[in-house]
């Protein structure tokens, strides 16, 4: 049984509009038998945090194209994207690049 994991989530670049404008979230993921990975985190976010328009954040298994994900200030492509296993006190940032310049 894995212990509950405390994760710090941040939303930027316009993604926060889907979360009532709240940019920072400190969440504790409940304990479960397998370790948490990004795929499960996305499902959890969609179920518990996403206030509206899920299709603007999640697409299928992954995030919508155009949303960048940083795990501990590094590109998630370097960490294995959806397969990355979350650790306690991880910092995950979602930045939307779909909002002009």
């Amino acid at each position: 049984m894995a212990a509950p994991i405390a994760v710090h989530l941040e939303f930027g670049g316009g993604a926060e509009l889907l979360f009532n404008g709240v940019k920072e979230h400190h969440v504790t993921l409940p304990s479960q038998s397998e370790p948490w990975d990004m795929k499960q985190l996305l499902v959890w976010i969609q179920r518990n945090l996403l206030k509206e328009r899920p299709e603007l954040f999640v697409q299928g298994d992954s995030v919508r194209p155009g949303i960048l994900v940083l795990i501990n200030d590094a590109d998630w492509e370097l960490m294995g994207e959806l397969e990355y296993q979350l650790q306690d006190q991880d910092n995950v940032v979602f930045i939307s690049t779909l909002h002009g310049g």
Partner: protein
Amino acid sequence: MCQVDEEYQEELERADGPSVSKKCVKCKEASAAVVIRAGDTYCRSCFKEYFIHKFRAMLGKNRVIFPGEKVLLAVSGGPSSCSMLSQVQEGLSQKAHKKLRFSPGIVHIDEGGAVGQSAEERQRKVSELQAVFKATGFPFLILPLEQVLDLPSSVVETALSPLEPPPSAYKAAVDRFNQTSSSDYLPPQEREEKSLPDVQKSHTQLLQQLMGSAKTLTAREDLLNTLRQHLLVHTARTEGYSKLMLGDNCTRLAIKLLTSISLGRGAQLAQDTGFSDSRYGNIISVRPMRDYSAKEIAFYNHMFNVPAVVVASLDTKTSEKASIQRLTESFVTKLQTDFPSTVSTIYRTSEKLQTACRSSSSADHSDRCLLCVCTLDTAVEKASAFQATLISEQLSQTKSLGCRNPGQSPGGEDCGRATSGGGCCSLTTETTDLKSLLCYSCQLTIRDMSSVDHLPLYILSEAQRRQRRAQMRDEISEFLLDDGDEGIYREV
């Protein structure tokens, strides 16, 4: 080993395995933080260097901005333009290696009235931006888009641009600048506080009426772009700037390229997406961020704390198929996730587009589109695709075109008829006449509008002026000598 093979079979795209740390390809020591393009991993400091260097290289390669010139930065508050602002700051600071050498000013256009934001939201966003601008020390202006209703018609007239300086002039100008100025860095001037102009509710309503008269979101976005451009150019002219810097990034320009083709703007692609755009004559727009993908900008802003504001636009939270712009955006971004070289390929294609050298003697205003101020692309010969669309349009129209252009004499009588807005006769005449002054895609935008009466006064009065001139020319055409005489006009 088995694991590596498995990975390879499943995903041919992915080169890296499940290992966490990869080394930076540049310095080869620090662990990587960012993946740029397809497979280039950089660490934080190398990424910062690369980012800053690209900006300087872009400006240096295209020697368009001369030392000491006044350049207006158009900052919408979004990530790209704020990144551009911070790069300019970085480049002008004393300790920079190879300092940039121009004097910047900032302008922000508050479009909240057209997008449907409440007054409090607009005020909040504006104060946030004001704080950011003040911190830079550059002179800045914050204008509401409602001011576009009060512009003079000189905006859509093409001012004659000064003759193109020869290439050697750039080097000479740089040497001159280095010799004369000993104290290179001008301390930021303390401008007296310009209070933000109050927006009258009536103006906002007029603007909303104008936006509302466009029936499709595509037309509305196109219209908004046009109005914003006009206001930017006008501001640059009145405040004495000679260059305008826009913050379009690579991803956005790739989307714009494909969108423009879909909207019928193929003839103007080079100007819409190129580095420099000289359609306004004495104001040249440049796009120094066009080499940066949206991902790079977002990373840089996040890692190095560049302040930006979230700006709601017309297509925020709309569905995928709401407008052509939106559809193209989702197409390109989706393709980009699977094929990371999509955007750069489109970008490289757009780099090859060049404007054909127009002779500067074509200062004749009726050669330019009324709205987008690009050269008209509708004067083509009979057997072209454009003529075919016109014919099929005529054939499919059910209402009779009984209201022909009555023979109108130039002068006061014309004005009365056009602005009275009485029966269907004048309206049809007006819509038809506007069409002849517009390029193909602007015609499509106008066609999507329920009425052209809501267009700002400067556009309508310029349209009438051009129509009168065209009629005058028709009337005296038999007395004019033929084309060989254009030389006489030029000297006048």
